[in-house]
C-alpha cells in the first residue's frame, strides 16, 4: 500500500459514521463470455464483506476465490503490475473506462470509491479490433501492430554513447515525456464513441517525433503508424472522451500535432520517394 492511501482506521475517521459498515456489500453485474465466438451475457454476483481499501482487482480476486470454492469458473481478467504503469488491466466499470476516478487505472481504483449496496456493472473494452478472448480479457494486438509500423528509432550499436551527448530542450523533453506516459492500456479506444485509437497513436508518434532521436524516421513513422491505425480503428471526431478516460491524462493536443505531422509527412514522403 502506498503511503498516500489512508489505512482502514484513517478512512473511518474521514467522515464515515463510526458505527458505519467497515466493509462493503456489493453486487456485481459481470460480462461472462466463454470464448471469442461464444455469445456473452451478464451474470450477477454477490460480493459481501469487501474492504474499502481493496483495489478493484483485489475485490475481483476475492470474488474469484469464492467462485472457485463454490466450484464455479472464476472471472477471467488481465492484470500485471497492479501499480498503474504496465497497461495490462482495463475494465469498463459502470460505463466508464477504468471506472469513476479520473487519471486512474483499474488496478489503482479502490473500493472506497463505491458505496455499500452498489450494483457495479463490469464489461470488457468494446471495439471491433479488440476481440473478447474470454470474459473481461480482450485481444489488443492491433495496438502492437501500430507500434510495429513505426514506434521505434534507429541507433548505432556499439559502445554506449556519452550521456547527454544529444542536447534536448527541457520543454521538448517534458512534452515528450507527457506523451511517453502512455501505458498502452487501450482505454482511449474503449471510451471513444467511434472506437478510434487516435490518442494512443498520437502519444506513441509524438513522444518520438518531439525528440532529436526521433527525427530520422519522423515522416515515415507518422505516415505508417497513422495508416496502420486506420486499418483497425474508427475515425476521430474530436469528442475528447479519450482524454477523460486516459489513466495517464494524456492530452488530445498530441492528436492535433499528429494530424499536422501527418499532412507534412504525406508531402515530404512523396518528395523523398521522387528522389530515390
Amino acid at each position: 500500500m502506498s503511503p498516500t492511501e489512508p489505512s482502514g482506521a484513517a478512512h473511518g475517521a474521514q467522515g464515515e459514521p463510526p458505527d458505519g459498515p467497515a466493509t462493503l456489500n456489493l453486487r456485481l453485474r459481470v460480462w461472462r463470455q466463454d470464448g471469442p465466438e461464444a455469445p456473452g451475457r451478464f451474470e450477477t454476483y454477490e460480493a459481501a464483506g469487501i474492504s474499502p481499501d481493496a483495489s478493484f482487482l483485489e475485490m475481483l480476486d476475492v470474488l474469484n476465490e469464492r467462485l472457485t470454492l463454490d466450484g464455479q469458473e472464476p472471472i477471467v481478467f488481465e492484470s500485471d503490475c497492479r501499480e498503474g504503469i504496465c497497461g495490462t488491466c482495463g475494465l469498463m466499470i459502470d460505463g466508464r473506462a477504468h471506472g469513476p476516478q479520473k487519471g486512474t487505472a483499474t488496478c489503482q481504483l479502490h473500493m472506497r470509491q463505491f458505496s455499500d449496496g452498489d450494483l457495479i456493472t463490469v464489461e470488457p473494452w468494446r471495439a471491433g479490433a479488440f476481440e473478447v478472448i474470454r470474459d473481461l480479457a480482450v485481444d489488443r494486438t492491433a495496438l502492437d501492430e501500430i507500434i510495429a509500423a513505426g514506434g521505434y528509432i534507429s541507433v548505432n550499436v556499439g559502445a554506449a554513447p556519452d550521456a547527454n551527448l544529444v542536447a534536448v530542450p527541457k520543454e521538448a523533453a517534458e512534452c515528450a515525456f507527457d506523451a511517453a506516459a502512455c501505458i498502452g492500456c487501450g482505454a482511449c479506444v474503449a471510451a471513444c464513441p467511434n472506437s478510434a485509437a487516435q490518442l494512443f497513436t498520437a502519444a506513441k508518434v509524438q513522444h518520438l517525433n518531439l525528440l532529436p532521436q526521433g527525427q530520422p524516421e519522423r515522416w515515415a513513422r507518422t505516415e505508417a503508424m497513422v495508416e496502420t491505425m486506420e486499418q483497425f480503428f474508427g475515425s476521430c471526431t474530436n469528442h475528447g472522451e479519450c482524454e477523460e478516460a486516459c489513466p495517464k491524462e494524456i492530452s488530445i493536443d498530441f492528436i492535433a500535432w499528429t494530424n499536422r505531422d501527418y499532412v507534412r509527412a504525406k508531402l515530404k514522403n512523396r518528395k523523398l520517394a521522387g528522389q530515390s
Partner: protein
Amino acid sequence: MALTGLALLGFVLVHMLGNLHLYEGPWETHEYAETLRDLGTEVIPRTWVLWALRAGLIAAFALHIHSAYSLTRMSRSADRRYAGGRDYIAADYASRTMRWTGPIVGLFVVYHLADLTWGHFNPDYVRGDPYHNVVASLSSLPVAIWYLVANVALATHIYHGAWSMFQSLGINSPRWNPLRRRLAQGFAAVILIGNLSFPILVQVGVIDDGGRSVVRERLEADHAVGDALAPPGGAP
C-alpha cells in the same frame, strides 16, 4: 472534413451578413442580389464569378458529405456497443449529434433553395425580388418554425465543427487553445442570432411588404417610362 467545413463556414458567414440587407428594404435587397451577379463584370462576363463561387460551394458541400459518410462508415465498422450502457464525460450534445444536425442542415439547404432560389415551395415567387420571396415564405408559421429548427441545428453543428476544425488541421498551441472554443462559440452565436432574426422579424411583421412586390412594381414603372421615352421601332 475540416477544409471543406472551413469553406462552408465562410459561406454561412457571408450569407448571413448579406441577408442583413433585408433590414434596409426590398429595393436594397434586390440591388445586393444584383451586385452578386455583377461581381467581376469589369473583367469577365456577368454572373461568371458568382457561378465560380457556386461551383466551389457545391464542391465543398459534396466533399464535406463524402468525408462525413466515409468517416461514419469507418467508425461503424470499428465500433462495438456496450451491453451495459456507457457514460459520456467530455462528449457534449453537439459532438454527439453531428450525424443528425448535418443531415438536418442538408435537407434544409435543399428546401431553402427550392423555396427561395427556384421558387417551387414559395407561395408567391417573384424572380429578382428576394425580399418579397422571403416575406411570402416566412410569413407562414410552419415554415418559420422549420427555419428556426434548421438554424438551431446549424449552430449546434458549427459549435462542435468549428472547434473540431482546429484539432483536425493541427492548429493547436497551448497558449491559444482556450481561444479556439470561444471562437467556435462566438461564431455559432453570431450565425444563430443573425439567421434567426429573419424568420422572427417576418413573423412579428417588422420585415413586411404587404404582399406587394416593390421591386416588380418599380421595374415595371421604369420600363413604362423607358418605353414611353424610346423612339418607335425600339432602341438600336
